[in-house]
């Protein structure tokens, strides 16, 4: 198991928490599409997630293949989820 730095893991767990809120609200909205407050909260966390991921990727490399990549292509080397100690 590779050890990664604390800052990386902290940032990743922060993203997980925000994305989990987005996910829960999305499932709720699938069956309650006209719940205005849930849509507002959903969109609030979507914006925050976008911001946190940009920040994370600029330091630790792309999380997705459609993220902007530096040279050389960094997606393959940023840590794989099952190799990280959280």
């Amino acid at each position, binding site marked *: *198991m590779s050890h990664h730095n604390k800052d990386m*893991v902290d940032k*990743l*767990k922060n*993203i*997980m928490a925000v*994305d*989990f809120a987005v*996910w*829960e609200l*999305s*499932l*709720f909205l*699938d*069956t*309650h*599409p006209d719940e205005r407050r849930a849509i507002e909260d959903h969109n609030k966390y979507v914006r925050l997630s976008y911001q946190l991921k940009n920040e994370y990727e600029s330091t630790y490399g*792309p*999380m*997705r*293949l*459609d993220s902007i990549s530096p040279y050389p292509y960094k*997606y393959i080397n*940023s*840590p*794989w*989820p*099952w190799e*990280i*100690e*959280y």
Partner: protein
Amino acid sequence: MWYYEKKLQYPANVSRTDLGMAKFLFAQYGGPDSELAAAVRYLTQRYTMPIPQAKALLTDIGTEELAHWEIIGTLIYKLTCGATPEQMRNAGLGDHFAQHDNALYPHDAAGVPFTAAYIASTGDPIADLHEDLAAEQKARTTYEKLITLTNDAGVIAALSFLREREVVHFQRFGEVLMLVQEHYQHKHIFY
């Protein structure tokens, strides 16, 4: 289509190598009520759902199940990391080692390979949603058994997360069943 994101839905840790627990966790990697079965079930049934809420929910929960499959895979990978053939054999994973070394394979806790026979897709939305509600309950009780089989705090935390997701999915499938029943009532179709 799908995009992969290099992140787990939940930060899954283990405290130590535990081959026995890894063996049990295969129940949720390739068993009848596994995360794999759940993903294939919902992502297959969604095509014939009659209302937008149901198409959306089966797509989204089916996708989440793939993320859960990855969490189970991560737990098994971490629990078996660096295990020797002899340790694998002593833990009852000798047959697994013979065929798969330390690699993962979608089989259940007893080594029975995954099969599509674990899922139903009847084309009847009411019947399919009842299967989905039952699937969530079966997965919930499997997680409860797995939780009682370990004292590893990291494994318990991850399994408790996954167990609670079954409760939430049960509620959502129930809500969508209500909406589908209402839809048929408006169309004067009664099952």
